[in-house]
Protein backbone atom coordinates (compact mmCIF):
# COMPACT_ATOMS: atom_id res chain seq x y z
CA UNK A 1 0.00 0.00 0.00
CA UNK A 2 1.37 3.40 -0.84
CA UNK A 3 2.08 5.71 2.02
CA UNK A 4 0.13 8.75 1.05
CA UNK A 5 -1.76 10.13 4.02
CA UNK A 6 -3.18 13.09 2.16
CA UNK A 7 -6.09 11.06 0.83
CA UNK A 8 -9.09 9.84 2.79
CA UNK A 9 -8.80 6.73 4.91
CA UNK A 10 -11.66 4.45 5.83
CA UNK A 11 -10.45 4.41 9.40
CA UNK A 12 -7.97 6.48 11.37
CA UNK A 13 -6.91 5.00 14.70
CA UNK A 14 -5.23 7.13 17.33
CA UNK A 15 -3.07 5.10 19.69
CA UNK A 16 -1.11 1.90 19.04
CA UNK A 17 -1.69 0.10 22.34
CA UNK A 18 -3.70 -3.13 22.56
CA UNK A 19 -7.01 -1.55 21.45
CA UNK A 20 -5.49 0.34 18.53
CA UNK A 21 -3.29 -2.51 17.31
CA UNK A 22 -6.09 -5.09 17.49
CA UNK A 23 -8.56 -2.76 15.78
CA UNK A 24 -6.07 -1.96 13.00
CA UNK A 25 -5.42 -5.63 12.23
CA UNK A 26 -9.13 -6.48 12.36
CA UNK A 27 -10.14 -3.56 10.15
CA UNK A 28 -7.36 -4.28 7.62
CA UNK A 29 -8.50 -7.89 7.37
CA UNK A 30 -11.97 -6.63 6.44
CA UNK A 31 -10.38 -4.65 3.61
CA UNK A 32 -10.49 -1.16 5.15
CA UNK A 33 -7.75 1.36 4.50
CA UNK A 34 -6.33 2.10 7.92
CA UNK A 35 -4.16 4.92 9.23
CA UNK A 36 -2.63 4.19 12.64
CA UNK A 37 -1.18 7.22 14.45
CA UNK A 38 0.83 6.91 17.63
CA UNK A 39 2.84 9.33 19.71
CA UNK A 40 5.57 6.89 20.62
CA UNK A 41 8.46 5.76 18.45
CA UNK A 42 7.41 2.10 18.57
CA UNK A 43 4.23 0.01 18.73
CA UNK A 44 2.70 -1.23 22.00
CA UNK A 45 1.20 1.69 23.88
CA UNK A 46 2.23 2.06 27.51
CA UNK A 47 1.26 -1.48 28.55
CA UNK A 48 3.35 -3.16 25.86
CA UNK A 49 5.88 -0.37 25.54
CA UNK A 50 8.95 -1.43 23.54
CA UNK A 51 7.66 -4.98 23.25
CA UNK A 52 9.34 -5.38 19.86
CA UNK A 53 12.85 -4.83 21.17
CA UNK A 54 12.66 -6.34 24.62
CA UNK A 55 15.53 -8.63 25.61
CA UNK A 56 15.07 -12.09 27.07
CA UNK A 57 16.18 -10.77 30.47
CA UNK A 58 13.69 -7.91 30.36
CA UNK A 59 10.94 -10.25 29.21
CA UNK A 60 11.56 -12.53 32.18
CA UNK A 61 11.37 -9.58 34.58
CA UNK A 62 8.26 -8.06 33.04
CA UNK A 63 6.38 -11.35 32.83
CA UNK A 64 3.97 -13.27 30.62
CA UNK A 65 1.24 -10.62 30.47
CA UNK A 66 3.71 -8.17 28.99
CA UNK A 67 5.04 -10.67 26.47
CA UNK A 68 1.46 -11.34 25.33
CA UNK A 69 1.74 -8.03 23.47
CA UNK A 70 4.08 -9.66 20.93
CA UNK A 71 1.25 -11.58 19.29
CA UNK A 72 -0.60 -8.32 18.67
CA UNK A 73 2.45 -6.73 17.07
CA UNK A 74 3.11 -9.84 14.94
CA UNK A 75 -0.48 -9.77 13.73
CA UNK A 76 -0.26 -6.09 12.93
CA UNK A 77 2.97 -6.14 10.96
CA UNK A 78 1.43 -8.76 8.67
CA UNK A 79 -1.48 -6.39 7.95
CA UNK A 80 -1.59 -3.82 5.23
CA UNK A 81 -1.97 -0.53 7.06
CA UNK A 82 -0.30 2.86 7.18
CA UNK A 83 1.43 3.32 10.51
CA UNK A 84 2.86 6.69 11.54
CA UNK A 85 4.97 6.60 14.72
CA UNK A 86 5.85 9.74 16.71
CA UNK A 87 2.65 11.34 15.46
CA UNK A 88 1.11 13.72 17.92
CA UNK A 89 -2.56 14.34 17.12
CA UNK A 90 -3.47 17.86 18.22
CA UNK A 91 -6.84 18.33 16.64
CA UNK A 92 -9.67 16.06 15.56
CA UNK A 93 -13.26 16.85 14.76
CA UNK A 94 -16.46 14.85 14.72
CA UNK A 95 -16.41 14.59 10.91
CA UNK A 96 -13.12 12.71 10.87
CA UNK A 97 -10.69 15.54 10.08
CA UNK A 98 -7.39 15.12 11.91
CA UNK A 99 -4.31 17.26 12.34
CA UNK A 100 -1.08 15.81 13.62
CA UNK A 101 2.60 16.60 13.84
CA UNK A 102 5.55 14.29 13.22
CA UNK A 103 8.93 15.67 14.28
CA UNK A 104 7.84 19.24 13.75
CA UNK A 105 5.98 18.61 10.48
CA UNK A 106 2.24 19.12 10.55
CA UNK A 107 -0.16 17.11 8.39
CA UNK A 108 -3.91 16.93 8.07
CA UNK A 109 -5.99 14.04 6.89
CA UNK A 110 -9.56 12.79 6.79
CA UNK A 111 -11.11 9.45 7.65
CA UNK A 112 -14.65 8.11 7.36
CA UNK A 113 -14.41 6.71 10.86
CA UNK A 114 -12.05 7.58 13.71
CA UNK A 115 -11.22 5.27 16.59
CA UNK A 116 -9.76 6.87 19.70
CA UNK A 117 -7.55 4.31 21.44
CA UNK A 118 -5.66 6.70 23.66
CA UNK A 119 -5.76 4.52 26.75
CA UNK A 120 -5.42 5.55 30.35
CA UNK A 121 -3.56 8.01 32.51
CA UNK A 122 -2.62 7.35 36.09
CA UNK A 123 -4.97 9.10 38.45
CA UNK A 124 -3.42 12.29 39.84
CA UNK A 125 -1.95 11.67 43.31
CA UNK A 126 -1.77 15.13 44.89
CA UNK A 127 0.13 14.75 48.17
CA UNK A 128 2.47 17.27 49.79
CA UNK A 129 5.81 17.20 47.98
CA UNK A 130 4.61 15.37 44.88
CA UNK A 131 6.32 17.89 42.60
CA UNK A 132 9.81 17.10 43.96
CA UNK A 133 12.24 15.50 41.51
CA UNK A 134 12.38 11.81 42.40
CA UNK A 135 8.63 11.55 42.91
CA UNK A 136 7.15 9.83 39.87
CA UNK A 137 4.05 8.01 38.85
CA UNK A 138 4.52 4.27 39.34
CA UNK A 139 3.68 3.78 35.68
CA UNK A 140 6.70 5.93 34.85
CA UNK A 141 8.88 3.50 36.80
CA UNK A 142 7.46 0.66 34.77
CA UNK A 143 8.01 2.52 31.50
CA UNK A 144 11.66 3.08 32.47
CA UNK A 145 12.01 -0.65 32.99
CA UNK A 146 10.19 -1.67 29.79
CA UNK A 147 11.76 0.90 27.55
CA UNK A 148 15.21 1.48 28.95
CA UNK A 149 15.96 -1.44 31.25
CA UNK A 150 16.30 0.99 34.16
CA UNK A 151 15.37 0.04 37.68
CA UNK A 152 15.19 2.33 40.72
CA UNK A 153 17.69 1.51 43.48
CA UNK A 154 16.18 2.87 46.69
CA UNK A 155 12.51 3.30 45.97
CA UNK A 156 9.23 3.07 47.82
CA UNK A 157 5.89 2.50 46.13
CA UNK A 158 2.93 4.30 47.68
CA UNK A 159 -0.78 4.24 46.99
CA UNK A 160 -3.23 1.53 46.09
CA UNK A 161 -4.19 -0.75 43.24
CA UNK A 162 -3.21 -4.11 41.80
CA UNK A 163 -0.57 -2.49 39.59
CA UNK A 164 1.68 -1.73 42.55
CA UNK A 165 2.13 -5.45 43.26
CA UNK A 166 3.09 -6.07 39.66
CA UNK A 167 5.61 -3.23 39.61
CA UNK A 168 7.05 -4.32 42.97
CA UNK A 169 7.39 -7.91 41.76
CA UNK A 170 9.10 -6.74 38.58
CA UNK A 171 11.57 -4.77 40.70
CA UNK A 172 12.21 -7.87 42.83
CA UNK A 173 12.92 -9.90 39.69
CA UNK A 174 15.21 -7.14 38.44
CA UNK A 175 17.29 -7.48 41.62
CA UNK A 176 16.28 -4.16 43.20
CA UNK A 177 13.24 -4.81 45.42
CA UNK A 178 11.39 -1.69 46.59
CA UNK A 179 12.25 -0.67 50.16
CA UNK A 180 8.56 -0.95 51.07
CA UNK A 181 5.01 -0.75 49.78
CA UNK A 182 2.94 1.92 51.52
CA UNK A 183 -0.63 0.91 50.76
CA UNK A 184 -3.56 3.19 51.47
CA UNK A 185 -6.38 0.68 51.13
CA UNK A 186 -7.79 -0.64 54.41
CA UNK A 187 -9.11 -3.97 55.64
CA UNK A 188 -12.60 -2.43 55.53
CA UNK A 189 -12.18 -1.75 51.82
CA UNK A 190 -11.32 -5.38 51.32
CA UNK A 191 -14.37 -6.65 53.22
CA UNK A 192 -16.71 -4.31 51.41
CA UNK A 193 -15.32 -5.52 48.14
CA UNK A 194 -16.59 -9.00 48.98
CA UNK A 195 -20.01 -7.88 47.75
CA UNK A 196 -18.46 -7.99 44.31
CA UNK A 197 -16.70 -11.28 44.84
CA UNK A 198 -19.05 -13.21 42.57
CA UNK A 199 -18.06 -10.93 39.71
CA UNK A 200 -14.44 -11.19 40.66
CA UNK A 201 -14.59 -14.97 40.62
CA UNK A 202 -15.62 -14.76 36.99
CA UNK A 203 -12.36 -12.90 36.53
CA UNK A 204 -10.61 -15.34 38.87
CA UNK A 205 -7.42 -15.33 36.81
CA UNK A 206 -6.80 -11.82 38.08
CA UNK A 207 -7.24 -12.82 41.70
CA UNK A 208 -4.85 -15.75 41.36
CA UNK A 209 -2.33 -13.53 39.63
CA UNK A 210 -2.61 -10.91 42.38
CA UNK A 211 -2.08 -13.52 45.08
CA UNK A 212 0.90 -14.91 43.20
CA UNK A 213 2.51 -11.46 43.08
CA UNK A 214 1.87 -10.81 46.77
CA UNK A 215 3.47 -14.19 47.54
CA UNK A 216 6.49 -13.21 45.47
CA UNK A 217 6.83 -9.98 47.48
CA UNK A 218 6.50 -11.82 50.79
CA UNK A 219 9.21 -14.31 49.83
CA UNK A 220 11.47 -11.42 48.83
CA UNK A 221 10.89 -9.85 52.25
CA UNK A 222 9.32 -6.64 50.92
CA UNK A 223 7.67 -4.81 53.80
CA UNK A 224 4.04 -3.78 53.30
CA UNK A 225 2.33 -1.05 55.34
CA UNK A 226 -1.41 -1.50 54.78
CA UNK A 227 -3.99 1.11 55.73
CA UNK A 228 -1.39 3.90 55.58
CA UNK A 229 -2.56 7.53 55.36
CA UNK A 230 -1.28 11.12 55.26
CA UNK A 231 1.43 10.46 52.71
CA UNK A 232 3.99 13.20 52.32
CA UNK A 233 7.09 13.37 50.13
CA UNK A 234 9.94 15.16 51.86
CA UNK A 235 13.17 16.68 50.61
CA UNK A 236 14.84 19.93 49.67
CA UNK A 237 15.91 19.78 46.05
CA UNK A 238 14.61 16.24 45.54
CA UNK A 239 12.75 13.43 47.27
CA UNK A 240 14.64 12.17 50.30
CA UNK A 241 11.95 10.41 52.32
CA UNK A 242 8.31 9.45 52.51
CA UNK A 243 6.40 10.31 55.69
CA UNK A 244 3.05 8.65 56.50
CA UNK A 245 0.81 7.50 59.34
CA UNK A 246 0.39 3.82 59.99
CA UNK A 247 -1.61 2.29 62.85
CA UNK A 248 -1.57 5.60 64.70
CA UNK A 249 2.19 6.03 64.39
CA UNK A 250 4.22 8.44 62.27
CA UNK A 251 6.56 6.60 59.92
CA UNK A 252 9.46 8.02 57.97
CA UNK A 253 11.28 6.09 55.28
CA UNK A 254 14.43 7.45 53.67
CA UNK A 255 14.51 6.78 49.92
CA UNK A 256 15.60 8.29 46.63
CA UNK A 257 12.58 7.56 44.49
CA UNK A 258 8.90 7.61 45.41
CA UNK A 259 6.55 5.89 42.99
CA UNK A 260 2.92 6.98 43.42
CA UNK A 261 -0.10 5.08 42.16
CA UNK A 262 -3.85 5.32 42.79
CA UNK A 263 -5.19 3.40 39.84
CA UNK A 264 -5.73 4.52 36.28
CA UNK A 265 -8.45 6.62 34.67
CA UNK A 266 -9.50 7.08 31.03
CA UNK A 267 -7.40 9.59 29.11
CA UNK A 268 -10.22 11.80 27.83
CA UNK A 269 -8.12 14.68 26.50
CA UNK A 270 -8.98 14.06 22.87
CA UNK A 271 -12.59 12.97 23.43
CA UNK A 272 -13.06 16.19 25.44
CA UNK A 273 -11.41 18.34 22.77
CA UNK A 274 -13.78 16.74 20.24
CA UNK A 275 -16.77 17.78 22.35
CA UNK A 276 -18.04 14.23 22.81
CA UNK A 277 -20.42 13.52 25.70
CA UNK A 278 -18.97 12.34 29.02
CA UNK A 279 -20.46 11.24 32.32
CA UNK A 280 -19.19 10.75 35.85
CA UNK A 281 -18.59 7.17 36.99
CA UNK A 282 -19.12 7.14 40.74
CA UNK A 283 -17.61 3.65 41.09
CA UNK A 284 -14.35 4.61 39.39
CA UNK A 285 -14.25 8.26 40.55
CA UNK A 286 -13.62 9.60 37.07
CA UNK A 287 -15.32 10.75 33.88
CA UNK A 288 -15.99 8.31 31.05
CA UNK A 289 -16.88 9.22 27.48
CA UNK A 290 -20.34 7.93 26.54
CA UNK A 291 -20.11 4.89 24.28
CA UNK A 292 -22.50 2.17 23.20
CA UNK A 293 -21.72 -1.56 23.27
CA UNK A 294 -19.67 -1.20 20.08
CA UNK A 295 -17.60 1.72 21.27
CA UNK A 296 -19.53 4.31 19.25
CA UNK A 297 -19.37 7.71 20.96
CA UNK A 298 -22.01 10.44 20.99
CA UNK A 299 -20.80 11.32 17.44
CA UNK A 300 -21.71 8.66 14.87
CA UNK A 301 -18.34 8.60 13.08
CA UNK A 302 -16.22 8.51 16.22
CA UNK A 303 -15.51 5.33 18.21
CA UNK A 304 -13.57 4.83 21.43
CA UNK A 305 -12.03 1.51 22.50
CA UNK A 306 -9.84 0.37 25.35
CA UNK A 307 -9.10 2.04 28.67
CA UNK A 308 -9.94 5.44 27.18
CA UNK A 309 -13.60 4.39 27.24
CA UNK A 310 -13.47 3.00 30.80
CA UNK A 311 -10.80 0.90 32.48
CA UNK A 312 -10.92 -2.79 31.52
CA UNK A 313 -7.23 -3.66 31.15
CA UNK A 314 -5.08 -4.75 28.22
CA UNK A 315 -7.01 -7.87 27.28
CA UNK A 316 -10.30 -5.98 27.50
CA UNK A 317 -8.83 -3.22 25.33
CA UNK A 318 -7.82 -5.70 22.66
CA UNK A 319 -11.34 -7.17 22.57
CA UNK A 320 -13.00 -3.75 22.50
CA UNK A 321 -10.70 -2.74 19.64
CA UNK A 322 -11.77 -5.75 17.59
CA UNK A 323 -15.44 -5.17 18.36
CA UNK A 324 -15.26 -1.52 17.27
CA UNK A 325 -13.40 -2.49 14.08
CA UNK A 326 -16.11 -5.01 13.17
CA UNK A 327 -18.85 -2.43 13.74
CA UNK A 328 -16.95 0.13 11.64
CA UNK A 329 -16.46 -2.39 8.81
CA UNK A 330 -20.23 -2.99 8.83
CA UNK A 331 -20.92 0.78 8.95
CA UNK A 332 -18.85 1.20 5.80
CA UNK A 333 -20.50 -1.74 4.04
CA UNK A 334 -17.47 -4.05 4.07
CA UNK A 335 -19.13 -6.64 6.30
CA UNK A 336 -22.77 -7.61 6.28
CA UNK A 337 -24.61 -7.21 9.57
CA UNK A 338 -25.09 -10.94 10.10
CA UNK A 339 -21.41 -11.83 9.65
CA UNK A 340 -20.44 -8.90 11.82
CA UNK A 341 -22.78 -9.95 14.63
CA UNK A 342 -21.58 -13.53 14.43
CA UNK A 343 -17.93 -12.51 14.72
CA UNK A 344 -18.65 -10.06 17.54
CA UNK A 345 -20.66 -12.36 19.81
CA UNK A 346 -17.75 -14.37 21.25
CA UNK A 347 -15.73 -11.15 21.65
CA UNK A 348 -18.54 -9.50 23.60
CA UNK A 349 -18.79 -12.54 25.85
CA UNK A 350 -15.06 -12.51 26.57
CA UNK A 351 -15.11 -8.76 27.18
CA UNK A 352 -17.87 -9.18 29.76
CA UNK A 353 -15.63 -11.68 31.57
CA UNK A 354 -12.72 -9.22 31.54
CA UNK A 355 -14.92 -6.48 32.97
CA UNK A 356 -16.33 -8.72 35.68
CA UNK A 357 -13.32 -8.31 37.94
CA UNK A 358 -13.42 -4.50 37.87
CA UNK A 359 -16.07 -3.71 40.53
CA UNK A 360 -14.20 -5.92 43.00
CA UNK A 361 -10.86 -4.26 42.23
CA UNK A 362 -12.35 -0.75 42.28
CA UNK A 363 -13.80 -1.39 45.74
CA UNK A 364 -10.84 -3.25 47.20
CA UNK A 365 -8.30 -0.66 46.00
CA UNK A 366 -10.03 2.71 46.12
CA UNK A 367 -8.22 6.00 45.62
CA UNK A 368 -7.56 7.30 49.13
CA UNK A 369 -9.55 10.19 50.60
CA UNK A 370 -6.30 12.13 50.83
CA UNK A 371 -6.01 12.32 47.04
CA UNK A 372 -9.74 12.64 46.32
CA UNK A 373 -9.96 15.63 48.68
CA UNK A 374 -6.43 16.94 49.40
CA UNK A 375 -5.67 19.30 52.31
CA UNK A 376 -5.72 23.00 51.60
CA UNK A 377 -1.93 23.29 51.49
CA UNK A 378 -1.44 20.54 48.89
CA UNK A 379 -0.58 21.69 45.39
CA UNK A 380 -3.20 20.41 42.99
CA UNK A 381 -2.19 21.99 39.68
CA UNK A 382 1.51 21.23 39.26
CA UNK A 383 2.07 23.48 36.24
CA UNK A 384 0.58 26.67 37.67
CA UNK A 385 1.12 25.83 41.35
CA UNK A 386 -2.48 26.15 42.49
CA UNK A 387 -3.38 24.52 45.82
CA UNK A 388 -6.49 22.68 46.94
CA UNK A 389 -7.13 25.59 49.32
CA UNK A 390 -7.08 28.01 46.37
CA UNK A 391 -9.72 25.92 44.57
CA UNK A 392 -11.91 25.79 47.68
CA UNK A 393 -11.54 29.54 48.04
CA UNK A 394 -12.67 30.04 44.43
CA UNK A 395 -15.71 27.88 45.15
CA UNK A 396 -16.55 29.96 48.22
CA UNK A 397 -16.29 33.06 46.03
CA UNK A 398 -18.93 31.68 43.67
CA UNK A 399 -16.91 29.57 41.25
CA UNK A 400 -19.10 26.61 40.35
CA UNK A 401 -17.23 24.93 37.53
CA UNK A 402 -13.66 24.18 36.42
CA UNK A 403 -13.82 26.67 33.54
CA UNK A 404 -14.68 29.53 35.85
CA UNK A 405 -11.79 28.36 38.05
CA UNK A 406 -9.50 29.37 35.19
CA UNK A 407 -10.76 32.93 35.58
CA UNK A 408 -10.01 32.90 39.31
CA UNK A 409 -6.54 31.41 39.05
CA UNK A 410 -4.62 29.55 36.41
CA UNK A 411 -5.47 25.98 37.39
CA UNK A 412 -5.49 23.75 34.33
CA UNK A 413 -4.01 26.40 32.05
CA UNK A 414 -0.43 25.12 32.05
CA UNK A 415 1.11 22.90 29.40
CA UNK A 416 -0.40 19.65 30.72
CA UNK A 417 -3.86 21.16 30.08
CA UNK A 418 -5.31 19.74 33.25
CA UNK A 419 -4.22 16.13 32.68
CA UNK A 420 -2.89 15.90 36.25
CA UNK A 421 -5.29 18.26 38.02
CA UNK A 422 -8.59 18.17 36.15
CA UNK A 423 -10.22 15.40 38.15
CA UNK A 424 -9.09 16.89 41.45
CA UNK A 425 -10.37 20.37 40.55
CA UNK A 426 -13.78 19.00 39.52
CA UNK A 427 -14.07 16.94 42.71
CA UNK A 428 -13.05 19.84 44.97
CA UNK A 429 -15.54 22.23 43.38
CA UNK A 430 -18.35 19.65 43.45
CA UNK A 431 -17.73 18.98 47.10
CA UNK A 432 -17.66 22.63 48.27
CA UNK A 433 -20.62 23.58 46.09
CA UNK A 434 -22.52 20.41 46.97
CA UNK A 435 -23.28 19.75 43.35
CA UNK A 436 -22.94 16.54 41.40
CA UNK A 437 -19.85 15.89 39.28
CA UNK A 438 -22.02 15.81 36.16
CA UNK A 439 -23.31 19.30 37.00
CA UNK A 440 -19.84 20.52 37.89
CA UNK A 441 -18.27 19.14 34.70
CA UNK A 442 -14.66 19.25 33.59
CA UNK A 443 -12.22 21.69 32.01
CA UNK A 444 -13.24 22.63 28.48
CA UNK A 445 -10.36 21.24 26.42
CA UNK A 446 -9.66 23.18 23.27
CA UNK A 447 -7.44 22.12 20.41
CA UNK A 448 -4.56 22.07 19.88
CA UNK A 449 -4.26 19.52 22.66
CA UNK A 450 -0.47 19.59 22.32
CA UNK A 451 1.52 22.83 22.27
CA UNK A 452 2.29 23.85 18.67
CA UNK A 453 4.64 26.24 17.01
CA UNK A 454 3.40 28.75 14.45
CA UNK A 455 5.62 26.99 11.92
CA UNK A 456 3.68 23.77 12.43
CA UNK A 457 0.39 25.53 11.76
CA UNK A 458 1.80 27.29 8.68
CA UNK A 459 2.91 23.97 7.16
CA UNK A 460 -0.68 22.82 6.85
CA UNK A 461 -1.00 24.99 3.73
CA UNK A 462 2.16 23.57 2.17
CA UNK A 463 1.37 20.55 0.01
CA UNK A 464 4.93 19.21 0.16
CA UNK A 465 5.20 19.24 3.94
CA UNK A 466 4.36 16.36 6.21
CA UNK A 467 4.20 12.60 5.71
CA UNK A 468 7.95 12.38 6.05
CA UNK A 469 8.03 9.63 8.62
CA UNK A 470 5.19 7.56 7.22
CA UNK A 471 6.02 3.88 7.32
CA UNK A 472 4.20 1.22 5.43
CA UNK A 473 3.54 -2.05 7.19
CA UNK A 474 2.66 -5.02 5.07
Amino acid sequence: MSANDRRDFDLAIIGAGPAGMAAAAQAASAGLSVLLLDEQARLGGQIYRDIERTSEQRGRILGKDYLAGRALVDDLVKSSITYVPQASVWQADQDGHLCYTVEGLATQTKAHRVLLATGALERPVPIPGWTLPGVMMAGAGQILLKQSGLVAKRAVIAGSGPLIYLIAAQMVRAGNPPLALIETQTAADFWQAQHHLAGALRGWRYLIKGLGLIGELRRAGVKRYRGASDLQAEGQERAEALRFSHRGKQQWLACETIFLHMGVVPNTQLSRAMNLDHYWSAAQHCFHPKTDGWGRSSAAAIFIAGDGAGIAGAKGAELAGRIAALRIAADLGRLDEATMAQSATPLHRELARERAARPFLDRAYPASSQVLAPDDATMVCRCEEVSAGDIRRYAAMGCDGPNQAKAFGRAGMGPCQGRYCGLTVSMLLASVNQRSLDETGYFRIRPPIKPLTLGEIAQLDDPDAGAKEVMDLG
Partner: protein
Amino acid sequence: MKTASPFEYLAQPTNLVAVRFDGQTYQLPKGENLAAALLAAGVRSTRENPGSNAPRAAFCMMGACYECRVRIDGASVQACMIQVRDGLVVEKMQPIGGQSYER
Protein backbone atom coordinates in the same frame (compact mmCIF):
# COMPACT_ATOMS: atom_id res chain seq x y z
CA MET B 1 23.60 19.02 39.05
CA LYS B 2 25.13 15.59 38.57
CA THR B 3 24.88 13.08 41.41
CA ALA B 4 25.01 9.32 41.75
CA SER B 5 22.00 8.07 39.84
CA PRO B 6 19.02 6.68 41.73
CA PHE B 7 18.53 4.28 38.79
CA GLU B 8 20.56 1.38 37.50
CA TYR B 9 20.67 -0.26 34.06
CA LEU B 10 19.95 -4.01 33.93
CA ALA B 11 22.61 -4.26 31.25
CA GLN B 12 25.26 -1.59 30.75
CA PRO B 13 24.39 0.25 27.55
CA THR B 14 26.89 0.46 24.72
CA ASN B 15 27.18 2.89 21.83
CA LEU B 16 27.51 6.02 23.95
CA VAL B 17 27.47 9.46 22.38
CA ALA B 18 28.28 12.90 23.79
CA VAL B 19 25.34 15.05 24.86
CA ARG B 20 25.59 18.48 26.50
CA PHE B 21 23.12 19.21 29.28
CA ASP B 22 23.20 22.42 31.26
CA GLY B 23 26.80 23.06 30.27
CA GLN B 24 28.17 19.58 31.14
CA THR B 25 29.00 16.74 28.81
CA TYR B 26 27.42 13.33 29.36
CA GLN B 27 28.02 10.05 27.58
CA LEU B 28 24.51 8.74 26.87
CA PRO B 29 23.30 5.68 24.95
CA LYS B 30 22.41 6.57 21.36
CA GLY B 31 18.71 6.09 20.59
CA GLU B 32 17.77 5.96 24.28
CA ASN B 33 14.86 8.05 25.54
CA LEU B 34 16.44 11.38 26.55
CA ALA B 35 14.57 11.76 29.85
CA ALA B 36 15.50 8.20 30.87
CA ALA B 37 19.13 8.66 29.83
CA LEU B 38 19.48 11.89 31.85
CA LEU B 39 17.91 10.23 34.87
CA ALA B 40 20.30 7.28 34.56
CA ALA B 41 23.21 9.71 34.26
CA GLY B 42 22.34 11.22 37.64
CA VAL B 43 20.64 14.41 36.43
CA ARG B 44 17.97 15.00 39.06
CA SER B 45 16.26 18.11 37.78
CA THR B 46 15.78 19.28 34.20
CA ARG B 47 13.86 22.50 34.75
CA GLU B 48 12.70 25.06 37.29
CA ASN B 49 9.02 25.90 37.44
CA PRO B 50 7.95 29.46 36.70
CA GLY B 51 6.56 31.06 39.83
CA SER B 52 8.36 29.20 42.59
CA ASN B 53 11.55 28.34 40.66
CA ALA B 54 11.23 24.90 42.27
CA PRO B 55 13.21 22.09 40.64
CA ARG B 56 11.19 19.66 38.53
CA ALA B 57 11.96 16.44 36.68
CA ALA B 58 10.29 13.77 34.56
CA PHE B 59 7.13 12.53 36.25
CA CYS B 60 4.98 10.43 33.89
CA MET B 61 7.43 9.28 31.18
CA MET B 62 4.53 9.10 28.73
CA GLY B 63 4.22 12.58 27.30
CA ALA B 64 1.31 13.71 29.46
CA CYS B 65 2.66 15.85 32.32
CA TYR B 66 5.13 18.15 30.52
CA GLU B 67 7.37 18.16 33.59
CA CYS B 68 10.34 16.93 31.52
CA ARG B 69 10.50 19.98 29.26
CA VAL B 70 14.00 20.99 28.16
CA ARG B 71 15.24 23.42 25.54
CA ILE B 72 16.80 22.08 22.33
CA ASP B 73 17.67 24.37 19.40
CA GLY B 74 15.73 27.12 21.12
CA ALA B 75 12.50 25.14 21.34
CA SER B 76 10.82 23.68 24.40
CA VAL B 77 10.47 19.91 23.97
CA GLN B 78 9.45 16.97 26.14
CA ALA B 79 12.62 15.03 26.96
CA CYS B 80 10.58 11.84 27.43
CA MET B 81 9.39 12.03 23.82
CA ILE B 82 12.74 12.31 22.07
CA GLN B 83 15.77 10.14 21.59
CA VAL B 84 19.44 10.68 22.29
CA ARG B 85 21.52 11.56 19.27
CA ASP B 86 25.17 12.45 18.91
CA GLY B 87 26.03 16.05 19.66
CA LEU B 88 22.65 16.96 21.12
CA VAL B 89 22.81 20.21 23.09
CA VAL B 90 20.17 20.39 25.78
CA GLU B 91 19.47 23.34 28.03
CA LYS B 92 17.75 23.34 31.36
CA MET B 93 14.54 25.40 31.34
CA GLN B 94 14.93 28.34 33.68
CA PRO B 95 12.26 30.99 34.04
CA ILE B 96 13.28 34.47 33.00
CA GLY B 97 12.73 36.82 35.91
CA GLY B 98 11.08 33.95 37.77
CA GLN B 99 7.77 34.19 35.90
CA SER B 100 7.92 32.60 32.50
CA TYR B 101 10.25 30.82 30.08
CA GLU B 102 9.63 33.38 27.35
CA ARG B 103 12.38 35.79 26.53
